[in-house]
């Protein structure tokens, strides 16, 4: 065994012992139930104890430096910690408590923030005490984000923000916001943009939840009417927020490739199909047309997950991220949306479920994920935008400039 491996096994023992002592047994295996408590709700009892202990140890954000409330672990140690948590039936609620704080804002502050900003913002995120949202899209700046028009004016010791954002996920229950705003209206589209951070608990900020086709949603419209941000809360250089904001989106894309396994998978689609459609004498699905399409989908789904693994394996062997990574957002979307459509087809008449006695919870949930899942090919860079990126950045094709 190499020295590195010895160290890792020592850490494994340490993690196991700490979990044994600190993770409340009563919560074991209740991740999914607990994960649902993400939003702004007060924690009580054992749940509260667990969050506090995890935060104290810094293991809610295991790879962040310990001086900012993180665990100071290496990536390998963090992986070991995750394995040990899984086998103890434990889970990490802090990323969900912090909204976009752990997955996106934190890493970006670590990269672009001043020392003061790190000390001010990272520890509360690491403790799961402060929840963040992001102000990116606007009504007239969706895929074409650089067209954004929310503006921030210099008012001496602070910025004054006016405008409107849309699709701000969790804005109504967040404490802080990181937003792209226009600080130089005279500059070119991408040039006059900055990344500002400010509290949501102020008079000039108003949020309005958006009802989606699937029902209630975490998304809001967010209005800024002379909202203010401290001068010290500009992240990265003035008028170069585009770079900062793009880097943050890379963290977002990574979280949407299906690479983040949150556990709790639904029953395999083929089992659902056998239950809802029935089988013939030879055990084959009674609807042979559906059976072929189901096989096609399951093969595509397997191909996607094998690609996820391959990309991960290649990334370990190679500091350059695999070119294959860039396709995963779209293939993940394809697989998930096709799965949702097939689930509806499998359920047949029962797949028309909205609510009420005629339908099971499983059916209602299937319909809601089908509807909500239509957004997967729109947000985080639409399907079309991803293809543009592949064509340009991976395949080296020129941007469209012709009339073909």
């Amino acid at each position, binding site marked *: 065994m190499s020295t590195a491996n010895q160290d890792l096994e020592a850490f494994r023992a340490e993690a196991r012992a700490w979990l044994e002592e600190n993770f409340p047994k009563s919560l074991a295996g209740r991740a999914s139930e607990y994960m649902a408590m993400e939003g702004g709700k007060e924690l009580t009892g054992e749940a509260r104890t667990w969050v506090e202990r995890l935060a104290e140890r810094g293991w809610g954000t295991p790879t962040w430096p310990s001086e900012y409330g993180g665990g100071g672990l290496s990536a390998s140690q963090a992986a070991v910690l995750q394995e040990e948590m899984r086998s103890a039936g434990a889970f990490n609620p802090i990323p969900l408590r912090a909204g976009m704080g752990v997955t996106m804002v934190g890493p970006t502050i670590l990269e672009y923030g001043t020392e003061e900003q790190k000390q001010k913002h990272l520890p509360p995120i690491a403790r799961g005490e402060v929840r963040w949202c992001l102000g990116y899209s606007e009504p007239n700046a969706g895929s074409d984000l650089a*067209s954004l028009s929310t503006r921030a004016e210099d008012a001496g010791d602070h910025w004054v923000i006016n405008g409107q954002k849309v699709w701000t996920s969790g804005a109504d229950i967040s404490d802080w916001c990181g937003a792209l705003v226009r600080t130089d209206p005279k500059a070119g589209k991408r040039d006059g943009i900055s990344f500002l951070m400010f509290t949501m608990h102020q008079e000039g900020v108003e949020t309005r939840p958006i009802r989606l086709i699937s029902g209630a949603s975490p998304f809001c419209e967010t209005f800024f009417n002379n909202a203010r941000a401290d001068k010290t809360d500009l992240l990265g250089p003035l008028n170069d927020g585009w770079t900062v904001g793009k880097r943050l989106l890379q963290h977002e894309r990574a979280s949407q490739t299906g690479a983040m396994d949150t556990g709790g998978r639904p029953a395999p689609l083929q089992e659902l199909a056998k239950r809802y459609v029935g089988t013939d004498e030879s055990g084959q699905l009674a609807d042979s047309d559906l059976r072929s399409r189901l096989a096609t989908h399951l093969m595509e789904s397997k191909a996607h997950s094998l690609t996820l693994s391959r990309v991960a394996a290649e990334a370990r062997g190679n500091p350059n991220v695999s070119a294959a990574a860039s396709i995963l957002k779209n293939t993940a979307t394809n697989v998930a949306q096709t799965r949702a459509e097939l689930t509806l087809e499998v359920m047949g008449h029962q797949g*028309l479920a909205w*609510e009420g006695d005629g339908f099971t919870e499983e059916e209602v949930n299937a319909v809601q994920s089908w509807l909500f899942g239509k957004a997967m090919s729109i947000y985080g860079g639409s399907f079309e935008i991803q293809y543009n990126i592949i064509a340009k950045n991976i395949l080296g094709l020129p941007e469209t400039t012709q009339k073909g």
Partner: protein
Amino acid sequence: MAVLNEEQTMLKDQAEAWVKEVAPVRAFRTLRDSGSDKGWDPAVWSAMVEMGWTGIVVPEAQGGSDLGYLTFGVLLEQTGRELTASPLLASALIGASALRLGGSDAQQRDWLPGVVDGSTVLTLAVDESNRHAPTRTAMKAEKAGDGFKLTGTKTLVPEGGEATAFVVPARTSGKPGDEDGITLFLVRGDSAGIERQRLATFDARGYANVSFDGVEVGKDAVLGEVDGGFGLLDAVLDRARAGLAAEMLGTASAAFDMTLDYLQTRKQFGAVIGSFQALGHRAAALYSQKELTRSCVEAALEALDKDADDAAQLCSLAKGKAGDFLFNMSNELIQIHGGIGMTDEFDAGFYLKRARAVESLYGNRAFHRDRYATLLGF
């Protein structure tokens, strides 16, 4: 091939204007938000009756205009465009067809005038599981005195909550899977032993599961022949499929128009998004599907009017192609509209939801591919 005659063209223009003004998708939204579980607006239904829409396939002797299925399709395409909710398809097309094709003179006299004046709302209650499978009819119809006693449950019955009577295939002999042994019955909605479970479906229409617990009917309730009802049922279903396909063509065409309009006006990256070639090609592909679907729908309706030999094939073709186009179109409607398409405030969701609901009715695309192959002998 179908070229609308002058009368049909006039009716189309009239229907288009009326639907847009009186029963647009905005009105459907109001209906949905009102929480009413009736499924339609009585004023809209009365107006349809007023305009003679309920008599289109009813013989003149029973108060109808006998204009035929192609003409009916013209109306359904327009109501499909605006998602107008009413029992027009269930009662005035499907119910009336069952009586027309299978009813005795007496039955036609007894029932059709009510269908025409809107006081009777008929519906076909055919499925018994989560799938359309007419040969798998299992509902029992036992001899009881002079008549029959019906026991079983029918699923996802359109307008099942409000219908005043049901056309019900049940099994008088044989076993599920057999075509022989199926008999059609006309059953009044207020018969003892009927229970309706209204369904809250995502397309917010008035479906119900309807259970029959020893419901007694006289022998005058038999529509067509005892044990030999499958052919009649299939003929009625084909009319249902072609009519629904016309409605679906309208729904998908409206979604196409909304999308085309958005492509022509929405700007991103300093240009209207319809100038992006990838979107332009997708729009061209959808337009092609639209035109092909129209040909299939009109051909099916015309074949029914002419009682053509290949009517069954064409009806499966029409439902299948309309299903393809509506599936793709409803997905593209959302995708091309982006975020706004995801909001309940915008109408796109209504079209998407309706698209999946009608797909399940009277046979989905897989059902009709299978049936088409069988009809072609392979």
